[in-house]
């Protein structure tokens, strides 16, 4: 049987960091996409732009910080506390997963994005998000950055997988 959970592309950030990581020309032959990431940056924002589109994003998020749980709404393609920043324990990276079902469909795209930001202190974060990209285009590219002029740090990694239903 053909492989049905396939690595499409992967990026590991080198010395000096990078402004963004982009997966382009995503094959349209899978059913769903799964992105796994391990990230660090001087700032804790993480943005994912789909097809270079910067509008049409909405989200509802649930976050715990070790003291309380809270919930937020978002209308931009980014959220805070998804990446370990430089004020957190050194050499510790966030871990997360984004799952996009039916990414080639001609409907709006519902996807989930989860992240854990660990820290050897009283504050750390777990974030789960429900996202909607109100755009009917098939997803052909994904771009990750910090939504600022700050780089993603060296040794961060992002991997894109494709999952086939048959």
């Amino acid at each position, binding site marked *: 049987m053909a492989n049905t959970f396939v690595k499409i592309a992967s990026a590991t950030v080198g010395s000096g960091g990078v402004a963004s990581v982009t997966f382009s020309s995503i094959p349209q032959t899978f059913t769903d996409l799964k992105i796994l990431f391990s990230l660090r940056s001087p700032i804790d924002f993480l943005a994912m732009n789909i097809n270079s589109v910067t509008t049409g994003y909405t989200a509802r998020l649930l976050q715990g910080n070790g003291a309380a749980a809270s919930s937020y709404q978002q209308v931009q393609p980014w959220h805070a506390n998804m990446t370990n920043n430089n004020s957190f324990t050194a050499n510790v990276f966030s871990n997360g997963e984004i799952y996009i079902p039916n990414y080639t469909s001609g*409907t709006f795209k519902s996807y989930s994005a989860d992240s854990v930001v660990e820290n050897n202190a009283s504050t750390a974060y777990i974030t789960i998000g429900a996202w909607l990209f109100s755009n009917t285009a098939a997803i052909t590219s994904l771009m990750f950055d910090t939504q600022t002029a700050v780089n993603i740090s060296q040794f961060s990694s992002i991997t894109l997988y494709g999952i086939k239903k048959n």
Partner: protein
Amino acid sequence: MATTYEPIATQTANGSSSFHDFSSIPATYTDLVIIIGGSVGDSGPFLRFNSDSSALYSHTRLFGNGTSAGSGRFLRGAGAPNDTRMEIGLGSLSEIVTNIYHIMNYADTTTHKTILCRGSQAGVNGAYLAAGLYGSTNAISAIRLGNTNSNPYSSGTVMTLYGIKAA
């Protein structure tokens, strides 16, 4: 390399069926994963295993709707219909959702079954996690997907069952 994450079956809703069944599930995997992308037609999406409507289902859920965080629980013994099916996941009449279910050790005949759910619905209900327990030692060979009011899933909603092998 042997394939260890395999699609077992997939269905695309036609907009008129109240239920969607996966049956004759092979017992050759370790865990099952169900991915639902689309509209599940109503709130209260549920799974029922092996056509079993006994009071054997319970779960704990955590959710954030963009305004507040909350938690809830259905106990066994809470009374029908709450404990006669695994009512976990997010849904509404027409909004697109992503519901991902992990059914651990589904073919084991010595333990009860744990189900993990991750739900996403950006429009209203938000982000959702749940852990459920099906209090039966029977291997799971069939799964029915439905919702509270038996409304049909929207046409084009895709439901796929995957098997994961430990080795």
